[in-house]
């Protein structure tokens, strides 16, 4: 009787999980099966593909580096602090996830655009940000950083306090504790968070279009190229999307595999 119930439970769980998995995978699969290798090859050779692909790889690499560099200390404070302020700040950090990307782009323009809050200041120092490759990076950091900070803060918060205290009483410096104890213990979550943030940055579209515009070689990333192609040729857009999916898949697998 008990074995029967266990089997039923497992069957139900598998069916539920399988339903979601199929729902998530099937549309992406449809991109592949409704086209063929020659279409993907054509997509790869489409004149807008290569500049867009290179720009996407270049900008997301910088964005990810910035996110990890600036996000790790913030996540540490959020994860380890017990003050009420940390809870409030954690909510603030998550706001970019809720804001629709196009609105995020508008917000970036209103802050750093030509007529934005800091626009005149930036213009005087010669740092016209909007419609530049730097704007692409800023848009990506804005929308993607919360995913990394969130994961990293949760991982730092789950660290065993005793281990850190023991390391401290054994005379380890703060930096040594961070690099030799905390980071190795949280490594898996940090990598997962970084992968998620990178994926979000790679797929970023709305904020980029608004804040950085759409110009080949300078601000036209792969998602913008896909959307541009969509206006004229559905098949070309599909082939470009397949390129995007393959690149993302390869890099995500590598990223998760790397530091185990």
């Amino acid at each position, binding site marked *: 009787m008990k074995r029967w119930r266990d089997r039923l439970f497992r069957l139900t769980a598998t069916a539920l999980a399988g339903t979601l998995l199929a729902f998530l995978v099937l549309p992406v699969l449809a991109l592949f099966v409704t086209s063929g290798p020659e279409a993907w090859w054509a997509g790869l050779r489409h004149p807008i593909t290569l500049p867009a692909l290179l720009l996407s790889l270049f900008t997301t690499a910088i964005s990810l580096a910035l996110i990890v560099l600036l996000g790790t200390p913030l996540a540490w404070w959020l994860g380890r602090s017990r003050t009420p302020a940390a809870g409030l700040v954690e909510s603030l950090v998550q706001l970019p996830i809720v804001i629709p990307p196009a609105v995020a782009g508008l917000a970036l323009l209103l802050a750093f655009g030509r007529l934005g809050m800091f626009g005149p200041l930036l213009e005087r120092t010669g740092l016209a940000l909007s419609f530049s490759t730097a704007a692409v990076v800023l848009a990506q950091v804005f929308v993607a950083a919360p995913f990394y900070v969130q994961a990293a803060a949760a991982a730092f918060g789950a660290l065993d306090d005793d281990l850190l205290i023991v390391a401290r009483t054994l005379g380890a410096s703060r930096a040594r504790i961070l690099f030799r104890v905390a980071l190795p213990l949280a490594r898996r979550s940090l990598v997962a968070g970084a992968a998620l943030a990178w994926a979000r940055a790679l797929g970023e579209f709305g904020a980029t279009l608004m804040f950085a515009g*759409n110009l080949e070689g300078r601000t036209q990333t792969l998602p913008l190229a896909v959307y541009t192609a969509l206006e004229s040729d*559905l098949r070309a857009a599909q082939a470009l999307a397949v390129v995007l999916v393959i690149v993302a898949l390869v890099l995500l697998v590598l990223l998760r595999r790397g530091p185990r």
Partner: protein
Amino acid sequence: MRHVLALVLTLWPLTTRAEDLTVFAAASLREPFEELGLALEKSTPGLIVRFNFAGSQELRAQIEHGAQADVFASADRKHMAALEKLSLVAGPRIFARNQPVVVVPKGNPASVRAFADLPKARRLVIGAPEVPIGAYTLQILDKAGADFKARVLARVASKELNVRQVLAKVTLGEADAGIVYRTDARSARDKVETVDIPAEQNVVAEYPIAVLRAATQVKAAQAFVDLVLSAEGQKRLAAAGFTAPGT
């Protein structure tokens, strides 16, 4: 954006009653068409007119994929012709014309006072060649000569995917100038100034309208098309910046 449209398309039958008139119209027609829809509702008791405003190419794709609509008004003869070829529409008629113009932010920071001043703009925003306004922009620049075209294109900071985004970047002051339709310039006249393009260098966008062959509200659909072509319809379109088809 496209996902939203797909969702709207899926839910369309749920929100539309059989006796509603459904009009698919190019985004630039929003203001005058909404007024004309209200006018038709007033003169036809019980009728409800529903609009789906989007880019002509998106509306065409929706109709090709079986979206239920009664009237289609396109900003471009190309998309109407494609539907006519598939026998999805009958007898389209040109009901309005629209012309590209240069818009600059209020105050005109880069002193673009004539079309020939366009290379003065430090930052120029135009439509991508894949969308109608971008294609028209290239045609206009081609007429102006290779040298002028190269100097203008060197100033382009972004190629937007629809005309409203070109307009948005000019109204925000992010671009010193942009090329949009006269109707767009009219709709934002408190934020932008308009600079005409000389007629001999300009192009004309023609807007066709037709009743769909699969229309369920044939009588109401024809009434709407007649209203658009009537003196009243033409008056409203003129107020929005369109020119009449005969001129």
